[in-house]
């Protein structure tokens, strides 16, 4: 790939008080790429993801997204509108219906007309497979359905990049696949995705690259098949042996 990276992370440092979360991470992600980040808990993978849309402030280093450095408040809000995020705990807005959840940011941030945002919302709910729940409140949906609404909500902003922070970790096993299916479809459509997840099946099927993080650093990165079956670093072997039991 000889394009410009859409996400450029250079020497990123972040600490919470005395505890270091990121110790100088370098990572370039190119348009259309799907990158899966794995690693033990506390390795800094979620923190890294949250630094990409500046939900987490960092202490040193550079993050440039879509050509804009994450420094000024204007840039940050502009970037956030271009970068969709899906959370482990869904974080749907419980006081709004499913339809309103998908419409609210279109209306408020993109200043779209009601009709246009309604049309987009219905289309996206169809895409994630739950148009019939449009009038329901999030509390009436299963976890898998809620997470699919959360994906639709993020997509409604027409993002260039989608970030997934352990999107299936809070789900019952039988609901994981329905969410992964939506993510797979997105990957096939060419969406740039950064996914923190231990779903090896998804990584093998959709990811261009898998990245293993530990202690705030990138230990190893490679094509998923190679990284999972033929890891080079001892740390990667140790970690994979634990999760591939």
């Amino acid at each position, binding site marked *: 790939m000889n394009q410009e990276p859409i996400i450029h992370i250079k020497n990123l440092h972040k600490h919470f008080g005395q505890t270091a979360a990121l110790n100088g991470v370098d990572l370039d992600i190119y348009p259309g790429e799907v990158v899966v980040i794995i690693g033990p808990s506390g390795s800094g993978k979620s923190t890294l993801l949250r630094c990409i*849309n500046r*939900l987490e402030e960092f202490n040193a280093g550079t993050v440039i997204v879509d050509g804009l450095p994450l420094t000024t408040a204007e840039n940050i*809000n*502009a970037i*956030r*509108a*271009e*970068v*969709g*995020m899906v*959370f482990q*705990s869904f*974080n*749907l*807005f*419980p*006081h709004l219906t499913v339809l309103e959840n998908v419409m*609210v*940011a279109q209306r*408020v*941030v993109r200043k779209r007309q009601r009709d246009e945002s309604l049309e987009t919302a219905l289309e996206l709910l169809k895409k994630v497979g739950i148009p019939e729940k449009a009038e329901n*409140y999030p*509390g009436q949906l299963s976890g898998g359905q809620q997470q699919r609404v*959360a994906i639709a*909500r*993020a997509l409604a*902003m027409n993002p260039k990049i989608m970030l997934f922070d352990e999107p299936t970790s809070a789900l019952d096993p039988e609901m994981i696949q329905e969410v992964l299916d939506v993510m797979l479809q997105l990957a096939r459509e060419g969406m740039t995705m950064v996914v923190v997840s231990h779903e090896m099946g998804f990584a093998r099927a959709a990811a261009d690259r898998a990245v293993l993080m530990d202690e705030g650093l990138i230990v190893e990165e490679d094509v998923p098949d190679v990284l999972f079956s033929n890891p080079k670093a001892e740390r990667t072997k140790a970690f994979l042996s634990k999760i591939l039991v």
Partner: protein
Amino acid sequence: MQIRKELEKVPGYEVADHRIDSWWWLVVAVIGIVVLLATLQPDPYWRIMRFVSDGLLITVGVTLIAFVLTLFTGLIAALGRLAQSSFIRWLTTIYVEIARGVPLLVQLLFWYFAFPSLVQAFGRLIQYRPFERYLANPFAMAILGLTFCYAAYMSEIYRAGIQSIPKGQNEAARSLGMSHGQAMRYIILPQAIKVILPPVGNEFISLLKDSSLVSVVAVADMTRRGREFMAANFIPVETWMMIALLYLIMTLISGRVVAWMERKTQTESR
């Protein structure tokens, strides 16, 4: 509605609902006592009621105006205490500490007696005639005093309500590109309102009762009118019993309305 119908089949649900509603009978009973007293013993009870009725309107007016202002000012103070700028946080915290730390009666006395003198002194200093001749309007100063104090308490209620909303809600809103203000307005505050409605209702009832303190700063509210009636007629027991009953009617009705709103917001949308 569907959920409510389902719930009504559950044994005990109907009973609980009924018990809350039954408190309306207390309101009816107190009103009944007042009506009985006024019709069976028009002298002095009906005479007292007629005498203090204009004061009752003042009490209601002072309370309603001060409450509406408190709702606005309290929200601004709460947002100030949650602001990103440490200077604004510091400023609003000082305000809240002062307003909560000085007795309301002392605050009312300050605004009515001391504040105008300060304005006059300032007017002389800058040679500005309207300030030099400034005279306090009792009604306005009473409302200012009540609002100044109650907005501080109200800001703490708002703040607790805002902080009770999970952090993920704000993160989700911000990750969609919303500004701090947009996230507050469309996502956080609509959810916080449900949480704060009961304590805000209780503040209204407190304010209604504390409005009787404005009687010491030349506002002819119901309490002051009661004192005037007593001074002319020397029947303290009848006068203060009637005043107490009239306050009780207003606070009991307010309490029922708050309970009704609370139930309404809880059954809706979930």
